[in-house]
């Protein structure tokens, strides 16, 4: 079985007592306890200001380097903004709904439902060029016939 683990450590001193949370999860295929996610698409790309781009396209292989992910599964997505100017950020949207901003140095890790053809993960840079690292862990996708 392919084994992929995602671990997070979160610490904060905002409260009277410090918070320290750690969690680790083995990424499994949907609805199973015996079979791990066994496919990955990974890339690093510069996002420039101006247009909104499909970073991960839910159904259209021709418009994105990664596409056709099986819907409603246990896909996981990691995105990091490697820009270094703290004023730079990218806006992350799904199906045109604003999720939030990834400022320089920020990362996110989410499950991705890819529940229909419109559920693309979209990205827009605010200013400058933002170097974006992304990884999609999944259990299969439809290839674009040549």
């Amino acid at each position: 079985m392919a084994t992929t683990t995602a671990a997070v450590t979160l610490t904060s001193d905002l409260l009277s007592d410090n918070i320290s949370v750690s969690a680790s999860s083995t990424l499994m295929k949907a609805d199973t306890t015996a079979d791990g996610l066994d496919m990955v698409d990974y890339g690093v790309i510069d996002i420039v200001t101006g247009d909104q781009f499909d970073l991960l396209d839910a159904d259209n292989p021709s418009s994105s380097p990664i596409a056709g992910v099986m819907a409603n599964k246990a896909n996981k997505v990691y995105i990091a903004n490697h820009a270094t100017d703290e004023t730079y950020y990218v806006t992350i949207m799904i199906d045109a709904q604003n999720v939030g901003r990834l400022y320089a140095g920020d990362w996110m890790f989410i499950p991705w439902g890819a529940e229909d053809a419109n559920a693309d993960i979209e990205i827009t840079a605010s200013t400058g060029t933002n170097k974006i690292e992304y990884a999609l862990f999944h259990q299969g996708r439809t290839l674009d016939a040549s």
Partner: protein
Amino acid sequence: MATTCSVTISSDIAPGLGTISKSMTLTKAGTINDLEETTGFSRRKLAATTAVDLITMANELVDPSDNTAAKVYVRNIGDGKGTIDKSQYVTISIGDTGGTPQEIGRLYGGDWLLMPLTVVNDKDVVAAPSTDNTVVLEYIMFFE
């Protein structure tokens, strides 16, 4: 007053993939100043498939309430008594339970997420379990 989050993703899917590792300090929008507010660490038990607000933005009195650098962490810890069912999931969405929240994805037993939020009113963090079986979520939000 700092909050830091580190992620490490290790995989043997491909020999050359290696390990993804990154740490971030949660800062206010466009600055290097630390985020200062939090909901505190919370736990919520759900036992029905009904979608509920895990975090209701209007109740958090977030100011400014538009597109700040907020982050949320959510983890599905199973039934809260040590049993984690990897086949049971909670669908996490952003929006208003009275409307049609935008699905983010399915958080299976033991899975976690960490993501930015707009913290705009009605862009709530919504959770909908896949079954009526008891499932417990741990969560915390940091904001300006």
